[in-house]
């Protein structure tokens, strides 16, 4: 055995995997060393999650070998993989919503006492595991009662609770904000120092350069190359991933710049002391036609809650909502949709995709729901709409009839965007619309949002990515602790200013 080989913890050689109609992976090599953080990069649908799932026994492989510590392995289930020392957080958090946080963390390896589950020990263990990701929770609460970010952290805590040689994280940070990401990275650095091998998948380049020692790039199911992070400039990385020129973000910035100085638009949505105890304190908010208004704030600051009461998912208990000069209050999403609203929810698995239905059906669902039972959209028209959006958003799928659950995470997100864009709404509420979407597509979507604004659509834009908010919004409403704490407009909008507003009010308290 050569020196090189013994330094490596995991060696994948010639891995191939096909699904009906898709060659997901073809002859991919992948090597992870001990004590390194290795970023696995690639566009949506490149095959990253598939590689991880095949390695950990979720799917059987078609060809190729795995070696861990020089020993050939062939896990046939996640549990198998854990027992040989591979601990994984999958892209779609696959915990059990109705079980408590503690049960989710300890599931499958519950502490036992006299042949029965030792609930106290379990709670203690869960708390300890959560402490590692710096999270304090009532571990007896059902997981579903927590936000998607907390769920993601719980999944992380669970993975860290396993004695592992190799830790795999598939987009662990997609719904975390900067502070939590930094905390996670602290933990990862510690584990790296202890000699653990860590694989991380993310679409945030900053994070890659902050933590990864080496990078492997996949494109269209094939290996592009393996690089030292330090020796691979950003632009190089992007062009390796995308294989083509990227849309210039500058164009978006310039467009926003111009819009910020345009005369005040006609107000479409106006909230007056609109609120709901327990979710968001009464707030004022306006969104004009042809205006993108950002909602910024930390996790749990009430961004999603604000969107929910506007869209009629939760009922507001105070204040008024005016839409196009008419006082309204929506009893249900259906009602809001009839009035020309659209909302892409942040939790795509629970609130977004209809997993077994096709891409086509998922895209036209809201459109058909608005048209009603008796006015079916013809199959031909459905196909045209689906094809149009598959092309517009670059959804990578064998065709419109593929079940949405078989698409990669980022491509599922694009399908959801398509569902709402197809509605041509008056007011579009985007809650983390680019969650899990690759750099190339992200740029396209920002450009698309811009062109919708130019056509006069009103857009409420929720994102944890401040950069995105600053680049695309004409006004930014800042939330903290479920209350509005400030509003920035025009040239006053910058990442620092937003952070300052968030922090400022915390000093005031």
């Amino acid at each position, binding site marked *: 055995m050569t020196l090189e080989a013994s330094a490596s913890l995991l060696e994948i050689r010639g891995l191939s995997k096909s699904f009906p109609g898709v060659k997901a992976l073809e002859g991919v090599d992948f090597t992870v060393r001990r004590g390194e953080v290795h970023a696995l990069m690639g566009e949506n649908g490149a095959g990253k999650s598939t590689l991880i799932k095949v390695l950990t026994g979720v799917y059987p492989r078609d060809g190729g070998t795995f070696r861990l510590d020089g020993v050939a392995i062939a896990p046939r289930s996640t549990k198998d993989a854990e027992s040989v020392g591979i601990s994984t957080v999958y892209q779609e958090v696959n915990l059990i919503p109705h079980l408590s946080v503690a049960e989710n963390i300890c599931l499958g390896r519950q502490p036992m006492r006299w042949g029965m589950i030792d609930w106290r020990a379990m709670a203690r263990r869960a708390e300890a595991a959560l402490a590692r990701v710096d999270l304090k929770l009532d571990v007896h609460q059902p997981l579903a009662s927590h936000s998607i970010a907390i769920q993601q952290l719980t999944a992380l805590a669970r993975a860290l609770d396993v004695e592992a040689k190799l830790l795999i994280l598939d987009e662990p940070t997609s719904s975390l904000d900067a502070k939590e990401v930094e905390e996670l990275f602290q933990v990862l650095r510690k584990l790296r120092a202890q000699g653990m091998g860590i694989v991380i998948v993310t679409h945030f380049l900053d994070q890659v350069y902050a933590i990864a020692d080496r990078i492997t790039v996949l494109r269209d199911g094939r290996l592009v190359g393996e690089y030292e992070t330090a020796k691979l400039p950003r632009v190089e990385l992007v062009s390796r991933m995308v294989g083509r020129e990227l849309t210039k973000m500058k164009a978006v910035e310039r467009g926003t710049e111009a819009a910020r100085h345009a005369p005040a638009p006609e107000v479409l949505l106006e909230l007056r002391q609109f609120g709901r105890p327990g979710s968001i304190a009464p707030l004022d908010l306006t969104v004009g036609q042809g205006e993108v208004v950002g909602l910024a704030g930390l996790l749990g600051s009430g961004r999603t809650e604000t969107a929910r009461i506007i869209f009629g998912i939760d009922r507001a208990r105070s204040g008024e909502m005016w839409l196009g000069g008419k006082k309204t209050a929506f009893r249900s999403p*259906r009602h809001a949709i*009839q009035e020309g609203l659209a909302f892409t929810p942040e939790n795509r698995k629970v609130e977004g995709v209809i997993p*077994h239905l096709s891409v086509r059906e998922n895209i036209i*669902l809201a459109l058909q729901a608005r048209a009603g039972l008796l006015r079916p959209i013809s199959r031909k028209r459905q196909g045209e709409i689906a094809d149009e959006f598959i092309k517009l958003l670059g959804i990578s799928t064998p065709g419109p009839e593929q079940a949405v659950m078989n698409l990669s995470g980022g491509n599922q997100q694009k399908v959801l965007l398509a569902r709402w864009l197809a509605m041509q709404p008056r007011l579009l509420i985007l809650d983390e619309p680019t969650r899990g979407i690759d750099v190339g597509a992200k740029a396209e979507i920002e450009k698309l949002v811009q062109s919708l604004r130019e056509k006069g659509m009103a857009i409420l834009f929720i994102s944890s990515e401040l950069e995105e908010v600053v680049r695309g919004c004409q006004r930014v409403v800042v939330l903290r602790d479920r209350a509005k704490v400030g509003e920035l407009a025009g040239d006053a909008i910058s990442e620092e200013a937003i952070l300052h507003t968030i922090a400022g009010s915390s000093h005031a308290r």
Partner: protein
Amino acid sequence: MRADRFQKQPARWWSSLIWPLTGLALLLLFNLFFTKGFFHLEIRDGHLYGSLVDIINRGAPVMILALGMTLVIATGGVDLSVGAVMAIAGTVAAELINNPKVPFPAVILAALAVAVAAGCWNGLLVTLFRVQPLVATLVLMVGGRGVAQLITNGQQIYFEDPRLVFVGNGHLLGLPFPALLSLGMLLLTAVLTRKTAIGLFIESVGDNQTASAFAGVNARTVKFLVYTFSGLCAGLAGLIDTSNIKSVDANKIGLSLELDAILAVVVGGTALTGGRFYLVGAIVGALFIRTLTTTMYALNVKSDVAPVPKALAIIAVCLLQSPAFRRRVAGWWAARKS
């Protein structure tokens, strides 16, 4: 994007039918060897007769029930009341047919209307009062036969009206009328679900109710409609069954048929958790179950032990349908070979 990475998958509408049809074919094959005269067909008085015809004929009630049940199950619910609703519809028809003042179409309409009302009741409990479907329909399953008893005063009713007798025993174009009715209902259901948007809504609500609501689908309307439709199917099945034996006993009509219907749906490939539904699959499932029953008769299996082989056969088909099970068997097979 590389061009050869994706291949267009030809849409194969029959792919969902493979396993139910395999099950049915195996069962028929068994009968080919072990049951004498099973495939014998003859034309008597211009009508087709034989075991196979009998299966389709006698299987009609379950086929029709299974259509309604498929839609209910696709929304993630279940309708346990269909057997009892059959009894109600049957007694209403039998009671009215013996009253010379009521014209025949009114008899049929009244029986069906009562069944539809029962379906509406289930639908209301499930949608408006948010009762679990299992519990909501259990109410009628238990109480429905009592209602039927009330109508008949606890008596068995006989009738001879040829028009009502025709429903369950007649022939049209040489084919048994109940079989034609099932075919008609299959076509009607397929058109209703696929030519309007309700099929899409049923599947989306059953697959992910929260996401459907967020997309503006009105789950209440959808659910209310499927329970109502299931009531209609039960009414029709009840008419056929009653007509078949020219009498009605409120305690016997449609007894346990709800279970046969549920099994037919599952054998047909629709998951009990809801989502995608398969109407033709459910019909094949109902035929499978009827064939099983007929096979038991033919082999003189005692009726008290008959459920055991029946259960085994149904489990076998359900296992065949499970991709996880097939993978496991394939893996085991490959391991044995090497």
